[in-house]
């Protein structure tokens, strides 16, 4: 039973079709890896799936229901991690996680600490985010994702800026999320180290007709 399906998605920037008749189906425990050259529409697809952009044609369904309804349960099951981690530069990493997660669920300071520990961000969690490197920021963002109850993760270049250890941390988190019945759509060039059968590839071609 597919939980997330996209049927014949078309999206235009001006006259140029960025997404052309795109379809896929994703079951619980699967990760859709979107690949393609720069400008192929990977981020656009993620934003369409997150409901931030409206496709001109086609429909995205979550558990059989179109995601158009804004107050539907879809958004509550969704976490979107954009290319730029959505963090406040003036706040510390711990504060950022606390506020980001608090918007969606109750969480205690201990849970925030534990999550930061999990992603290897405990050492710099109390420094303002403005003083952190891009990789450190991404780890903070993953701490928030780790606490999020969402079943569907939309990840834009999740492993960018991360060192080897960080990349395997992301793969582990993702594997754990999928094993728990979660789903994920990830736009990335790098190979994701997931166990067999979890990965579904989607190739976007950048060249228009």
């Amino acid at each position, binding site marked *: 039973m597919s939980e997330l399906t996209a049927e014949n998605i078309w999206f235009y920037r001006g006259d140029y079709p960025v997404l052309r008749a795109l379809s896929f189906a994703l079951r619980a425990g699967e990760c859709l890896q979107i690949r393609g050259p720069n400008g192929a529409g990977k981020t656009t697809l993620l934003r369409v799936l997150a409901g*931030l952009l409206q496709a001109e044609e086609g429909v995205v369904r979550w558990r059989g229901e179109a995601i158009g309804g804004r107050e539907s349960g879809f958004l509550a099951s969704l976490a979107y991690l954009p290319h730029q981690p*959505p963090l406040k530069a003036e706040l510390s990493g711990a504060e950022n996680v606390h506020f980001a997660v608090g918007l969606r669920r109750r969480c205690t300071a201990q849970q925030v600490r534990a999550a930061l520990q999990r992603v290897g961000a405990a050492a710099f969690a109390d420094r303002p985010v403005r003083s952190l490197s891009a990789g450190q920021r991404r780890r903070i963002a993953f701490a928030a994702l780790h606490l999020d109850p969402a079943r569907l993760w939309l990840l834009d270049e999740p492993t960018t800026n991360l060192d080897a250890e960080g990349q395997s941390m992301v793969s582990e988190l993702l594997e754990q999320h999928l094993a728990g019945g979660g789903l994920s759509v990830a736009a990335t060039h790098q190979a994701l180290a997931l166990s067999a059968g979890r990965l579904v590839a989607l190739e976007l071609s950048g060249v228009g007709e």
Partner: protein
Amino acid sequence: MSGPGVFRAAVWVVQRDLRLATRRPAQVLQPLAFFAVVTLLFPLGYTPELAKLRAIAPGVLWVAALLASMLALESLFREDADDGTLEQFVVSGQPLTILLLAKTATHWLLTGLPLTLMAPLVGGALGVPFAALGGILSSLVLGTISLSLIGAVGAGLTLASRRGGVLLSLLTLPLAVPVLIFGARATELAIAGDSLTAPLYLLGAVAVLGLTLAPLAAAAAVRIGLE
């Protein structure tokens, strides 16, 4: 899993924005300093005679309050749009209207409320009698609430344009004219010692209308601005 209630999420946003404000106090203090400086220029530039100043005090107070409130508006949604916070609001599953209303409320707490509280100080320099301060304070409370709400719509609409500052003022100032008229009228009546019920009611009506419509308009504008 059930998320926090809408009310809790709104309180959350207010807390976060207040904490952010403590990290960059200059941004909060600038509009207030602007308000104080502009109003205090009049005794210097126009006349030190209190009787003459008293006559122009309503207009001076309200124009300065309007401009000071406008000054703080640009940053209302801009930073949250740039760092991706607004996108997270949209996908959070919480109603965007309420979250933006919470942000607008914080804007008022950091601009409108302090402006109101500064009015006695500034009013004294403009020769406003002590007895009029109660009326002026109540009119400013209602007026600044409306200004923040109107401003939120403008800030939402100018989200997509990089240099939205002037555009924001051009959009917002005409909408703020009723607030200016009723507010200045209330202040004038308060100084004269007359009953200011009528303009206060009208200011209240504008505030209620803004409270009902502005968050909806702001949310629609922000959704478009993020695309």
